[in-house]
């Protein structure tokens, strides 16, 4: 008798059906089930007991269901690695090679292609699969999936949780319509707002004209179906959720919008200040928020629902620290002075620098804070320098720093190197006087403008013929990325419009080459798509270009 068969028989007798256990409330099932599924932690707080290759005990918190079957439970096919869905809707359905009408639903069709036929699970056979790694046909999955030893009640909770995964269509998804919204915080620059919304609206309009064409033209409809599955016939809507007043009141405004016109996902979004209340709202309601245009995103290793294009301006401060770390031998015992304009932006830049500089093991820089609104003077700079004789002077301020800095450089005790943020200097960055260009190093978190020109055609397509000079070129490109990522993800999702699956799908996307950033990468759980920032200097002449002094991602 084969080992497998012995196991099967053994387990059929041992694993008591999980149905006898009394289940907690639906909310508790969500809470406790999610903890088992995502963190590998049992309701009593212990780690789940997992075994690989049948009997090698491993830490259940390292072998979590979510790490293989994804948050949505809809699994994935990545090259050779096939992880089937583990949500009730699919498990309690027979798997066979061809189910009419489901040819393009990946959670059905893809897996039928790669995995053998099996009957529908029952609660009992599902408990056997999880505890013994044997499926209803007697086939073992232990070579690829751990087995988990669970008490009856815990098993019942886990199974009840699996039944709720990607079960009902997400809010905002209708029979033939998907609703999106974009959050606009009052007080945002109107040009910035239009630059953010226009590419999104373009994409929505294009999708709707396709749906319309498919509605009247049989051939377009057939091809649309082959390419996009059920998605081809859907129309999209994009509404603006405008937030007014004190950020403390946004929560109630968001709830009201969400109640009246729930959106499948928030696209873009823009705020001149904080984004935190929107981020929190999305986190708590489980609403995806793709790439809001903000300088100072919420940083978290565990939050799930908001994808940012980068870590914001902080990333420039971090890059400056990494760059200086690479030449620390040359600075040795001399000080670094960081002059910080008080306010969100200055603080984020300084904090980025401070954090990475500490992580790389260096003595902290000397921080000097400039009160908001008070112009920087050469005298203030001289004082900063005189006291500390720094090798490097970091100036986190706007273009107002250029003239006083020019005066400082005439001073014999001037520092050898100045670091500033090119995005904060804005267009003034390219009018820096020649004499300042040799010591001045700038952080620039985008592709160099001369190189990004190659992407103009792509980026301008989303303007549908409107004049590009009326828009903010950076935001336009950011929003280009948002609509493209969304389009690709929806296409990969075919008919499975679940919020968590949208984010799972983006997490499976390859690195992309887009306008604006050298590289945009996703990866499971990654929430800050662009990880790079150049250190640049200005070239010579009347219309100087940036010249790279570092790689995109500084190690």
């Amino acid at each position, binding site marked *: 008798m084969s080992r497998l068969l012995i196991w099967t028989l053994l387990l059929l007798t041992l694993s008591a059906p999980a149905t006898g256990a009394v289940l907690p409330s639906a909310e508790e099932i969500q809470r406790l089930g999610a903890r088992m599924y995502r963190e590998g932690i049992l309701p009593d707080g212990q780690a789940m007991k997992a075994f690989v290759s049948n009997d090698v005990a491993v830490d259940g918190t390292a072998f979590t269901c979510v790490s293989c079957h994804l948050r949505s439970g809809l699994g994935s096919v990545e090259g050779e690695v096939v992880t089937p869905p583990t949500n009730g809707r699919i498990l309690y359905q027979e798997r066979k090679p061809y189910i009419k009408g489901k040819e393009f639903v990946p959670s059905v069709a893809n897996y039928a292609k790669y995995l053998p036929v099996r009957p529908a699970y029952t609660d009992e056979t599902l408990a056997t699969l999880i505890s013994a790694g044997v499926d209803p046909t007697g086939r073992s999955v232990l070579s690829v999936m751990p087995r988990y030893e669970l008490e009856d009640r815990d098993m019942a909770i886990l199974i009840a949780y699996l039944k709720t995964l990607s079960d009902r269509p997400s809010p905002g998804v209708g029979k033939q319509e998907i609703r999106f919204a974009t959050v606009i915080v009052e007080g945002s620059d109107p040009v910035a707002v239009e630059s953010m919304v226009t*590419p999104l609206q*373009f*994409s929505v309009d*294009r*999708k709707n*004209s*396709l749906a319309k*064409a498919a509605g009247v033209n049989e*051939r*377009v409809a057939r*091809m*649309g179906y082959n*390419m*996009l599955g059920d998605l*081809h016939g859907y129309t999209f809507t994009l509404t603006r959720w405008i937030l007014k007043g004190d950020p403390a009141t946004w929560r109630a405004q968001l709830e009201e919008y969400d109640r009246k016109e729930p959106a499948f996902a928030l696209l873009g979004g823009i705020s001149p200040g904080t984004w935190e209340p929107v981020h929190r709202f999305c986190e708590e309601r489980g609403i995806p928020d793709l790439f809001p245009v903000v300088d100072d995103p919420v940083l978290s290793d565990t939050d799930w629902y908001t994808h940012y294009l980068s870590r914001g301006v902080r990333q420039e401060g971090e890059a400056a620290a990494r*760059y200086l770390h*690479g*030449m620390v*031998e*040359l*600075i040795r015992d001399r000080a670094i002075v960081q002059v910080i304009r008080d306010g969100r932006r200055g603080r984020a830049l300084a904090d980025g620098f401070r954090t990475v500089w500490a992580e790389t093991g260096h003595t902290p820089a000397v921080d000097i804070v400039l009160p908001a609104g008070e112009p920087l003077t050469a005298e203030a700079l001289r004082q900063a320098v005189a006291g500390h004789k720094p*090798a490097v002077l970091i100036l986190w301020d706007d273009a107002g720093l250029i003239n006083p800095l020019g005066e400082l450089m005439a001073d014999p005790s001037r520092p*050898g*190197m100045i670091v500033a943020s090119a995005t904060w200097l804005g267009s003034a960055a390219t009018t820096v006087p020649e004499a300042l260009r*040799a*010591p001045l190093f700038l952080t620039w978190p985008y*592709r160099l403008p001369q*190189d990004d020109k*190659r*992407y103009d*055609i*792509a980026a*301008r*397509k*989303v303007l549908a013929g409107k004049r590009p000079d009326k828009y903010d070129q950076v935001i336009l490109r950011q929003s*280009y990325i948002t*609509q*493209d990522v969304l*389009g*690709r993800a*929806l*296409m990969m999702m075919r008919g499975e419009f679940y919020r968590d699956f949208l984010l799972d799908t983006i997490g499976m996307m390859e690195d992309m*080459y*887009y306008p604006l950033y*050298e590289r945009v990468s996703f990866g499971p759980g990654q929430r800050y798509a662009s990880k790079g920032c*150049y250190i640049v*200097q200005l070239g010579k002449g009347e219309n100087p270009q940036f010249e*790279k*002094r*570092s*790689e995109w991602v*500084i190690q």
Partner: protein
Amino acid sequence: MKAAVLILAAALLGSPGLAADKPAGEGEIAYIVNGYRYDPAGSGGDPDTGHSLCGTRCNAISADSVDYMMGGGWEMRKLAADREIVIPLDNPFMKGNCICTVDEFLARRSTRNQTVREGQ
């Protein structure tokens, strides 16, 4: 049929324009860096630090070929392999030059291949 595919893809992806808006032929030189070394050039700069800084400095001039392709309709023609080019280190605390070993390319907007980019 093909046109319909393009419309479908473009509908979701907002794909780049298909027509070249720049005359073909004009181009730019691009390098892909294969190696580097530091030359103190009489400055007395520390060779190890110099080597490490030249790594950053030379990598900074390296182009990413995919970058040229993805922008839509660019092609790269190799002009020379393993050519050595000398650039100043450009570090305020240390003089000397970096010698970057590069493959040299002429990158220009392609006249062929004006279809949607890969993956669409």
